[in-house]
């Protein structure tokens, strides 16, 4: 059971590596009351914009506010669903096309709680965390990412 009552860091510099995800999964092997894990991964897309093609996203954040907000979301989702574990990681700085920028990981005894909580976390993270993506183009310009 992991229900810490203080904000914890969610930011990692640069892309999130598949190896760190494997390590995070493996860390749960000792938690034998877990029956299901739900994971969401955000990956940077090579979108074609009018001004050029996206080759990377440069993420920035109002870190202090984002961590407080992430803590508030975390507590609300823990209160709403019977979860054993919850982990949130978001990139800062440059993440190239095809690399991972978001890793949300929930675990519960029965699958439904983990799945529903993971979906809700992703929606809230995108809507409520003061984080911005600057899409770097192959034309040396940039456009500011818009969440839909």
């Amino acid at each position, binding site marked *: 059971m992991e229900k810490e009552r203080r904000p914890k860091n969610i930011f990692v510099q640069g892309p999130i590596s598949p190896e760190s995800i494997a390590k995070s999964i493996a860390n749960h092997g000792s938690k034998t009351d877990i029956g299901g894990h739900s994971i969401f991964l*955000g990956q940077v897309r090579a979108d074609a914009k009018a001004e050029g093609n996206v080759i990377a996203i440069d*993420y*920035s*954040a*109002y870190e*202090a*506010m984002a961590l*407080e907000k992430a803590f508030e979301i975390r507590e609300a989702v823990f209160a709403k669903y019977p979860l054993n574990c919850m982990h949130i990681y*978001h990139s800062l700085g440059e993440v190239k096309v095809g690399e991972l*920028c*978001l890793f949300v990981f929930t675990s519960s005894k029965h699958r439904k709680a983990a799945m529903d909580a993971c979906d809700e976390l*992703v929606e809230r*993270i*995108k*809507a*409520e*965390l*003061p*984080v*911005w*993506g*600057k899409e770097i183009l192959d034309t040396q310009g940039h456009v*500011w*990412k*818009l*969440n839909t």
Partner: protein
Amino acid sequence: MPTTIHIKAFGMVAEKIGTNEMSIDHIGDSVKLLDALLVKFPELKTVKFSLAINKMLVSENQKIPENAEIALLPPFSGG
């Protein structure tokens, strides 16, 4: 000696006004602050942004405490 307000700007807003950090003399509430900002940076009229006072989003007019940290936040686009 007047107290000050510390202002942080992010993303597209920082780009528009050409800075991501500044201090100004204290202003009493968020509506007056917005007015002052739009006079100082007319280019802000062309961008959508929200205000946070001490890391809390402002939805209606609100008093600004002394030495408050104000943030100018364009629409979030994390994930």
